[in-house]
C-alpha cells in the first residue's frame, strides 16, 4: 500500500485481536510505519449481586471508582505488553488508551491522529449473535474515513 506512515491498531485484548496484531506489526515493518496501539475502555457495567460494598442494588461511588481504576490499570498494562512486543519486532510503537464507545473512538482516533489505515480483528460471530450484536469492526468500517483492514480472529 502506498504511503502508509501511521497504522492504528485497535485491540480489545481478545484472541480475535491478536491475529490482527501480527498483521499490524508486519505492515508497520514493511512500510517502516509508526504503530499506534489503541484500546478503548467502555463504561464499566456492573451487575450488583449483593455483598461487599453493594447495597440496595447500587454500588457505592467508591467501589465504582476502584473498579474503573482497576480496569484502566489492567488495560495500560496489556497495552504496554503489546508495545514491548512491537518494539521487539523493530517497530516504532506507542499506546493510546481512550474511553467511550469503541467504534466511535477508534474512527475518531484514526482521524485525529492521522492514521493511514486502521487494523482491527473480527470475532467472526455467526447466526443470531452476529445479527443482534453486530460487531465493532463493522461499525468501524462504516465510520472510518481511512482504509480499514479487518482480520478474522483464529
Amino acid at each position, binding site marked *: *500500500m*502506498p504511503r502508509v506512515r501511521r497504522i492504528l491498531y485497535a485491540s480489545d485484548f481478545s484472541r480475535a485481536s491478536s491475529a490482527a496484531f501480527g*498483521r499490524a506489526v*508486519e*505492515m508497520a515493518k*514493511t512500510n517502516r510505519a509508526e504503530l499506534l496501539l489503541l484500546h478503548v475502555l467502555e463504561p464499566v457495567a456492573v451487575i450488583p449481586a449483593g455483598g461487599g460494598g453493594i447495597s440496595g442494588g447500587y454500588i457505592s461511588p467508591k467501589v465504582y471508582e476502584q473498579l474503573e481504576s482497576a480496569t484502566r490499570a489492567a488495560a495500560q498494562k496489556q497495552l504496554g505488553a503489546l508495545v514491548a512486543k512491537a518494539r521487539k519486532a523493530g517497530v516504532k510503537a506507542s499506546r493510546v488508551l481512550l474511553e*467511550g464507545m469503541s467504534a*466511535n473512538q477508534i*474512527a*475518531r482516533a484514526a*482521524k485525529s491522529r*492521522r492514521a493511514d*489505515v486502521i487494523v482491527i480483528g*473480527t470475532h*467472526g*460471530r455467526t447466526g443470531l449473535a*452476529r445479527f443482534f450484536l453486530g*460487531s465493532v*469492526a*463493522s461499525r468501524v*468500517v*462504516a*465510520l*472510518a*474515513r*481511512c*482504509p*480499514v*483492514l*479487518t*482480520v*478474522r480472529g483464529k
Partner: protein
Amino acid sequence: MKLESVLLATDFSSASEYAERLAMDMAQAGHARLHVVHVVPPVTAPGDAAERLTQLVRRIGPGVAVETAVLSGRPPREIIRYAREKDASLIVLGTHGRTGVSHALLGSVAEAVVRLAGRPVLTVPLMPEASAAPADVAAEPPLSHHCVVCVRETDDLICEPCRSRIRGEALRRGMPG
C-alpha cells in the same frame, strides 16, 4: 503480510475508485496476482460489465497478472465465494460511507463481507486523501451522534444543554430527581 493474490471487488461507482487504485498498487508492489470482479444482481443482464472491467484492468501497469470475472448474485456472497475459490489473501473493496438511518436500513456490502469472509478485508472509503488537507478536515462530517432531542452533535444520547433543560423542566413541574 505476504500477498499471494488480491481480490478487488468493484461496483464501478466513485466509491470504488480509491479502492481500485489501492488494490492495483498493492498487487504491483507485492507481485501478487490481482483478481478484479464485479457482481451484477441476480436475474440481471451483465450489460457492459465485462467491457468496463477490461477498461479498468488496462490502467494497471505491467508486471501484474490479472484475472477478471463478472459474477451474478448477491454481492457479499458472490465476492466471498470467489475469494475462497481463488484463495485470495486479501479482499479490497470500497465503502459508500452511509451513516445514520440509511446505513441502518441498507447496511453495506463491505460490512457483510467483513463479517463473513473469514479472511483479511481492506475496506476503502471515498477519497481518504481529502482528509490530508487541513481545510477539508473541518468540512468533513463529524463522527459523533446527534442528540435525540435537538439533533445537535454530541457524544451522548442527549446533549448537555437538552439534559439540563429537561432537568429544569422536571424541577419546575415538581418531579422528583
